């Protein structure tokens, strides 16, 4: 029964060889990629008119996905750091409304107005972050309170100032044409991708860089993985979390601005309830609800699935009374597929 101890030579006999494709599939974002491809093929097959996978079709759902996606990148970072922000959806409305009010009521130029919006977003992010870290309340409840406050402020302020629940005339601002080019232009008419897709790509690149290559990224994973342990080895937990809240607010300002510039008007209900879609996108893409794991690429693939589903249902011409049912089923299917791929590839795990 007794054998002699093996000589400790290379290669390590304690590691079984695993093919590359298997190692790839275990990564959650690859599961999300496969889910996205399946959803794409599914709606391409369902679409009776053949537009879903045509340039105009792709452009449409890419454009819808982009605003989910920009937010999902930021929200994924925040969730990896172990927090959520339920005010993120309403913030896209607040920032858009503020921009509109500054332009149409205060008569400011586009760029000065944008600067104020950015400052506002930073303040709200700081508020959320500092309240969460100081009070040690769950971020769910703190940002929910912020969300309610902003919701009321959005309609209250807008009505008090304009007598309506909408702000328009953003295209009359000085500097709008440049703004239009930066936030609202399209590639060209045969392949009319919106510039928001470009912003989304930028968010993915930046997010991935920070998360994978910088010490800030290391800290984000650490504070989400185990706050106390991170604090004990000297990671500035509070600063890391607060900066993630600010990141989410800034992303909301970007999306709010893109919406305002593209549509030239903003209504007070905009963005309400969207915080959940951002969270869904992140989770579908493999981000842990409890923090400590996830990726920006995965979250973006989640956003892509949401965008394709939103428009795919219309292209398929299904009875749209049932759209939420379809939505729920596809969402569930995508997550299941993601898990299944990982389990298959990862072998037994219990």
């Amino acid at each position, binding site marked *: 029964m*007794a054998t*002699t*101890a093996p000589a400790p030579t290379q290669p390590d006999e*304690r*590691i*079984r060889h*695993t093919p590359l494709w298997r190692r790839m599939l275990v990564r959650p974002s690859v599961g999300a990629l496969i889910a996205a491809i399946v959803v794409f093929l599914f709606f391409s097959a369902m679409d009776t008119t053949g537009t879903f996978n045509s340039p105009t079709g792709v452009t449409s759902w890419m454009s819808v996905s982009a605003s989910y996606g920009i937010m999902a990148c930021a929200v994924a970072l925040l969730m990896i750091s172990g927090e959520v922000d339920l005010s993120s959806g309403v913030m896209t409305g607040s920032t858009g409304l503020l921009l509109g009010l500054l332009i149409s009521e205060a008569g400011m130029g586009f760029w000065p107005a944008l600067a104020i919006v950015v400052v506002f977003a930073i303040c709200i992010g700081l508020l959320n972050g500092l309240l969460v870290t100081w009070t040690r309340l769950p971020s769910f409840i703190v940002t929910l309170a912020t969300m309610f406050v902003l919701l009321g402020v959005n309609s209250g302020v807008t009505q008090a100032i304009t007598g309506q629940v909408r702000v328009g005339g953003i295209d009359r601002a000085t500097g709008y044409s440049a703004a239009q080019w930066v936030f609202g232009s399209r590639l060209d008419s045969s392949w009319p991708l919106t510039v928001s897709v470009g912003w989304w790509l930028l968010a993915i690149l930046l997010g991935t860089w920070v998360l994978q290559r910088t010490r800030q990224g290391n800290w984000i994973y650490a504070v989400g993985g185990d706050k106390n342990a991170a604090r004990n080895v000297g990671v500035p937990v509070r600063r890391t979390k607060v900066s993630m809240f600010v990141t989410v607010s800034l992303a909301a300002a970007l999306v709010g601005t893109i919406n305002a510039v593209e549509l030239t008007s903003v209504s007070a209900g905009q963005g309400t309830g969207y915080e959940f879609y951002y969270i869904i996108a992140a989770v579908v893409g493999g981000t842990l609800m409890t923090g400590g794991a996830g990726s920006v690429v995965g979250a973006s693939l989640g956003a892509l699935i949401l965008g394709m589903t939103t428009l795919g249902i219309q292209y398929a011409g299904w009875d749209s009374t049932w759209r939420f049912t379809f939505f729920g089923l596809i969402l569930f299917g995508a997550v299941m597929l993601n898990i299944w791929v990982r389990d298959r590839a*990862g072998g037994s795990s219990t």
Partner: protein
Amino acid sequence: MTGTTPSAAARPGRDSPGDMYLRLEDVGKTFGSVVALEGVSMSVNHGRITCVLGDNGAGKSTLIKILSGVHKNDSGTMFVGGQPTVFESPSDARDAGIATVFQDLATIPLMSVWRNFFLGREPQTGWGPFRRMDIARGKEICREELTLFGIDLRDPDQPIGTMSGGERQAVAIARAVYFGAEVVILDEPTSALGVKQSGRVLKFVKDARDRGIGVVLITHNPHHAYMVGDEFVLLTRGKMTNRWLKEDVELDELIAAMAGGAELADLAHELDS
């Protein structure tokens, strides 16, 4: 588990005096690409203490997690009372009379000491819809059992997460000893314990053996192992590389095997200089 009951008629081990209760044959376990255990065969007998020794990462915890139903072995077979068995969950193992102290202790930080002590096996009282936990009795038993291990409890309602590491470990051991019926498995039970508490634990291990219970003890302390063990199994890098009976081995030999021979001598020399 596939309906096995412990039976005194299980075939006895080749070279063990007690009844063989648990037996592993050629068992292996991999995690993804990590081979944690390969081709391990061993047995646990009633009334004997089997010490599993080995370096860090040798696979000792993995081995006992298979015995206690936390992991399922990928290859090989486990026999319980002579029947090939697969534990679907730790509660199957528990139902087969196997109580385990895990290296991570398996306690719920926010719950009180006594609730942790009885978790999964709460004492009950009352009947029908009024069936409820017997809280007073639970607290009392918990306090008594811990006193036996040298822990003087301030308050059985204290959340276990606020206790010191050693106090927590003592709770986990006291629980296993209190509930262990056939086999008690202890994964480094004395690692966080004080001298006095360690002594108590070793004494309890011996007492359990004398009551006919099979004990599996994992430890890095050769003195402790040699003091109580009847049989020693050495794991090296996931494989079983040696096996002795108490009669056939000296303490020094054991220390040398655990430490990798010559190397330790150098170290002792350096330290003394």
